[in-house]
């Protein structure tokens, strides 16, 4: 029995370790190594921190990096603020069939590719788009209004694209809050605000954290939405990575950028977990 168990363990451990090492660990080590070398001649490289030095001395790179981080944080907060009341409504206000119907309705847009969703926003927001036409026809605008290619459009796209990943974990945690506990909060003299602050939000914390982590990650790593809705001036960090790799073929600098993005996301995720006393296993698993 003992031998059999050991054999089983090895059989299951093999594919896992192969997957983990070949597709996750080794590629990232390679990425790090490439980011740490500098081309000194044709086919000749030496180890240096030059790529990272380039990043810190070129203002455009720094600005793009910080801008991406700040806008991603902002988009995460916005998604949380918009999504929370809806998640609460679905989890605690709606009952029975209406509840499951609303939940499904929330999922529908995310069965479709992000590209399609972004395309939809382009049709809505562009100069010849629906909203522009609507504004003209009600007389709020005298000529075509371009609403695409600015930060607000990026924000709309990011929030829209991320919504599901915020709402679903929120619904899951809020559903587990029993009505009795909320009633007890009121029964003992609490009002809407204090019950929200002392009972509902603390209870929903695991959902808030896991939702925020995923949304933040998705915003930070998003390429499609900033490119399509933000246009040429969108200055998103993933665009820099793409252009270094694919357009300029400067893999060394691109790898450094990729690593910096990875570090940024890890630091913020880790900080968020620490700040709220959660762990990755608990919030993700």
């Amino acid at each position, binding site marked *: 029995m003992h031998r059999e168990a050991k054999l089983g363990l090895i059989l299951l451990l093999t*594919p896992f370790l192969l*997957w983990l090492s070949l597709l996750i660990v080794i590629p990232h080590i390679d990425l790090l190594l490439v980011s740490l070398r500098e081309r000194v001649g044709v086919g000749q490289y030496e180890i240096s921190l030059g790529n990272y030095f380039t990043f810190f001395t070129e203002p455009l790179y720094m600005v793009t990096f910080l801008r991406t981080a700040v806008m991603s944080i902002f988009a995460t907060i916005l998604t949380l603020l918009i999504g929370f009341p*809806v998640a609460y409504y679905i989890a605690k206000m709606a009952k029975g069939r209406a509840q499951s119907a609303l939940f499904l309705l929330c999922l529908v847009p995310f069965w479709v590719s992000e590209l*399609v969703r972004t*395309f939809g926003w382009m049709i809505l927001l562009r100069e010849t788009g629906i909203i522009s036409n609507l504004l003209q026809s009600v007389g709020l605008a005298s000529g075509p209004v371009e609403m695409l290619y600015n930060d607000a459009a990026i924000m709309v796209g990011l929030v829209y694209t991320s919504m599901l990943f915020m709402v679903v974990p929120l619904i899951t945690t809020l559903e587990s809050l029993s009505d009795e506990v*909320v009633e007890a909060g009121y029964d003992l003299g609490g009002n809407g605000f204090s019950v929200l602050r002392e009972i509902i939000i603390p209870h929903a914390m695991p959902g808030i954290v896991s939702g925020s982590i995923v949304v933040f990650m998705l915003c930070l790593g998003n390429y499609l939405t900033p490119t399509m809705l933000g246009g040429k001036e969108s200055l998103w960090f993933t665009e820099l990575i*793409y252009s270094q790799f694919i357009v300029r073929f400067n893999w060394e600098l691109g790898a450094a950028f990729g690593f910096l993005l990875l570090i940024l*996301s890890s630091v913020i*995720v880790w900080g968020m977990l620490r700040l709220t006393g959660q762990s*990755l296993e608990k919030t993700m698993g």
Partner: protein
Amino acid sequence: MIPSIPQSRFVTTAYTAYVVLFFIFLALPLIVVAAFAFNDSQFPSLPWEGFTWNWFFGSERPMIGAFHERSILRAIGTSVFVAFCVSALSMVVGLSNAFLFNRYKFRGQSILYVFMLLPLVIPGIVLGISILVASSRLANGLWDGFQWDVEALRPGLWLVILGQFSFITTIATLVIGARLQKFDKTLEEAALNLGAGRLTAIRTVTLPYLAPAMIGAFVVAFLMSFENFNTTLMLVGSDAPLTIAMFDRLKEGSTPLLNAVSLLLMLGSSLLALVMIAFQKKG
């Protein structure tokens, strides 16, 4: 704020209105995309020029419909192929991982579990470039050392499959693991007690129990692969899957053809999702 707490009519109405607005916000882009698939015009925008099926079935320039556009059809085929490979791989490895983390206790397990979750917090584009870098280093090494040219290690479908497989496996593991966790282990013991061997017990009792989750994992993996953009973008070669092909076209300017393809995508994924829900209900 639950139905049993009395609230003023104003608050209740405002709240409901907010939720309605939210769902309009969710639906709006999709409705717009779907509607303009039927616009008899070269551009997916107002004015409305009348209804047409041409963007689906049209076969003459300038209105070549989705079903007659070679490059789109080929891209769909590529996407299906990639998605199928990724789903199958992820489901198998996910199943194995689920057993590994649910049924065994070994040293370093919790660390490995965190490692298993890591792909969720790595930006897709970083996953993409890391695999790109690693595979080309390997390919270069093989060429330099043995003069072997391994085509599979150059940007192309195989790398796309590997790249997507790398993070979709985590999702599959979580989906299958969640159901395995709920499994009542005494059922397996009962099967052993009734004379089944260990593997037979798993095959006849545990796997049928896991079937809905495995199908669920397969469908989720399929959808995620089909609509993946970031990782694919960095690894794609000459054969572009659908999302990349559409992206390239969109950059050049859109025609309602893209709306038609999008509508087909929506219908396809809704259908898949419904199939999954049906299976989940049965389980």
